[in-house]
């Protein structure tokens, strides 16, 4: 097998606990986003556009739906003869197997996979974020600076900074200090969890980290700080475009709403940077004679006879006459009955909202979540619908 300059390892085992019922049977990277995508489509499309043809996808939590979705990687051009997409679940070894204990340990357990390709660089990414990024430019940056590891960094709101690993950098983008989720952050440059390692260095530190008893085997908590302590060259790659961690109901809802702006911060319709996804094979959407649609994203296979305002609709949604969907995200194949009104909600795939049901309220800022395949009637509203 030929040598690869860089391969990607995509961490897709995230449970997405804070997404509640949306991730009950689904890994976070498989959660729907943006009218026809799943979160992981963004990172995989980034790989496709960055010329990366070898991607190991590390799965762990609820992988069934995710595995089925990824298949052999064809939608992202990753069904390749040499390389392509390989799904890497935890496995049993001669001395017994263990779950992935942390992000670094997940890569450690798959060192043999990386060694097969003998790459110079390894890109570590996760399937949890919405952004468009050319990893090739980041690799150029990494090569130019001669760093051992390059960490993509983005400026975040100061009040958000404590949720992330934050970096102090000097004039040449060299990282002078790194703190994982500090209580009182002294910098607002957050690590995006996107790393390019020179493979020989990563290899060394993975082995070293695995041997450490006190380590929690996490890149941000353990491996990066230990490289920092050893005086390795850590550089930051400044990223200035849209990047969103959709880890909570609020942020998932917000990120969907971001797409509806007149000039959206994340443009899905850029022909030079298509977001690839599995195609649902549905006919063009039918906007009925009694429909009213404004400021919304609607996908193939929808049959709309009611009103849709500032909402994102996935494929196969049927909205009956006199229904209203406002400021909501409606996932695939949801049925909305006559006269039903939905305000500020996320409706899970396949849910049925009976005629006349009212979800949320125009005066309430809270976001209501309806679980996958829920049948919502007026009587069962409180019991069936989970309020966030």
């Amino acid at each position, binding site marked *: 097998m030929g040598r690869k300059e860089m391969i990607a390892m995509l961490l897709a085992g995230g449970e997405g606990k804070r997404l509640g019922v949306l991730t009950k049977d689904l890994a976070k990277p498989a959660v729907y986003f943006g009218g026809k995508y799943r979160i992981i489509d963004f990172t995989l499309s980034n790989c496709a556009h960055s010329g990366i043809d070898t991607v190991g996808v590390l799965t762990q939590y609820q992988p069934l739906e995710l595995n089925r979705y990824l298949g052999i990687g064809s939608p992202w051009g990753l069904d390749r003869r040499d390389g392509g997409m390989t799904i890497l679940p935890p496995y049993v070894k001669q001395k017994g197997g263990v779950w992935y204990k942390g992000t670094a340990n997940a890569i450690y357990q798959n060192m043999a996979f990386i060694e097969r390709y003998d790459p110079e660089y390894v890109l570590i990414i996760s399937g949890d974020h919405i952004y468009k990024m050319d990893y090739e430019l980041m690799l150029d940056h990494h090569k130019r600076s001669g760093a051992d590891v390059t960490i993509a960094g983005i400026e975040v709101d100061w009040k958000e900074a404590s949720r992330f690993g934050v970096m102090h950098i000097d004039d040449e983008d060299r990282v002078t200090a790194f703190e994982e989720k500090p209580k009182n952050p002294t910098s607002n440059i957050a690590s995006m969890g996107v790393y390019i390692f020179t493979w020989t260095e990563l290899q060394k530190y993975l082995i070293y980290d695995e041997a450490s008893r006190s380590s929690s085997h996490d890149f941000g908590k353990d491996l990066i700080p230990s490289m920092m302590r050893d005086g390795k060259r850590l550089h930051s790659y400044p990223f200035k475009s849209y990047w969103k961690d959709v880890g909570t109901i609020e942020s998932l809802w917000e990120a969907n709403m971001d797409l509806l702006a007149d000039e959206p911060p994340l443009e899905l*319709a850029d022909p030079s940077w298509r977001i690839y996804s599995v*195609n649902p094979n549905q006919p063009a959407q039918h906007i*009925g004679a009694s429909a009213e649609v404004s*400021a919304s*994203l609607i996908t193939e296979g929808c049959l709309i006879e009611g009103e849709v305002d500032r909402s994102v609709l996935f494929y196969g949604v049927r909205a009956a006459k006199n229904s209203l969907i406002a400021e909501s995200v409606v996932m695939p194949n949801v049925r909305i009955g006559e006269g039903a009104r939905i305000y500020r909600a996320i409706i899970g795939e396949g849910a049925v909202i009976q005629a006349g049901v009212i979800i949320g309220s125009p005066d309430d800022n809270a976001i209501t979540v309806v679980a996958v395949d829920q049948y919502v009637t007026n009587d069962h509203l409180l019991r069936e619908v989970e309020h966030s």
Partner: protein
Amino acid sequence: MKHKVMGVINLIHETDELEQLTQGRCLATVPFGARYRLIDFVLSSMVNSGISKVAVFAHTKYRSLMDHLGSGKHWDLQHRQSGLFVLPPATDDIQEISRGDLYHFYQQRDFFNRSTLDYVVITRSHMVCNIDFEKVIQYHLEREADITVVCKQQDSLAGKARKVSMDDEGRITAIQDHYGRMTSDISSMEMYVMHKDLLMELVETSLAQGQDHLVRHAIFSRLDKLKIYGYMYEGYLGIVNTLTSYYRNSMNLLRPEVWKELFYQPGPIYTKVKDEPPARYLENSKATNSLIANGCRIEGTVVNSILFRGVHVQKGAIVSNSIIMQNGMVGENSFVQHSILDKDVRVEAYRDIRGADSSPFLAGKRKII
């Protein structure tokens, strides 16, 4: 499929009165229904019926056909042993290309002879329908027919089709071309089921007798010698081979019951995947009674219209009773009514384009208005 059946989509000398729409493409690849090409309907029907070996007899202007079908993987026809075969004319003499389809079937006889499949379903590309061929084969076997012709009873036809009359048993007694004098409300859907051996025999004997056309000569002339039965198709049918029928049948898709049936029952219709984002409706946009594909951007008003992938209707523009194909653009405050705009047509700002319901205005590919 229980039975061993292969499909042939025969594009040789297909009736085509679509004017500019087929100037640079064959009838089979005329865009239809906001995101499909005509051939998708019969091809998807074959796939959904369990036919996994399909030959497309390309004839002329087949660049767009090759581009659209590719390896066949979007129709799940990329298999190790069977799958999709696009077969352009196999002849070393350019004169021979214009010969009838019997000659071309003969040239492609290896395709049939090499196959281990017993039955052949031969169709055209311009019948917009969603049909289960398994049922047709079943009927063919029950009747012990030599040939089964798929027919449709329909009062008014927008397109041109052969007329069929049959007896109480369903045996076909007469077939005439669309201009024939016979009065019958039964049309042929130009779909023929027969045993492969019979097809090969018909091709060889008819050619030897100096005949040219499979249906008109080889089949019409044998109504008394062969048991030829009609299978009545009950689903939605649109015959698209004239510009009027193209427009009428497109507009029919705006009826929700047609949309629900044609695109879903008995199986989905597949097409080449384009990875367009969801359609985007901006504040103050208006859309009613329309079919809109992904990748569209609607800032103006769209009424009773069909918009293909990537169409942009700018602010203040009004599109009504029109069909706008892929990547079309209607500029600010323009008015487009009763029009068919082929791919990549740009209507600049403040234009007023009106056709008539009975005779829509047609703009060719890449035209700037």
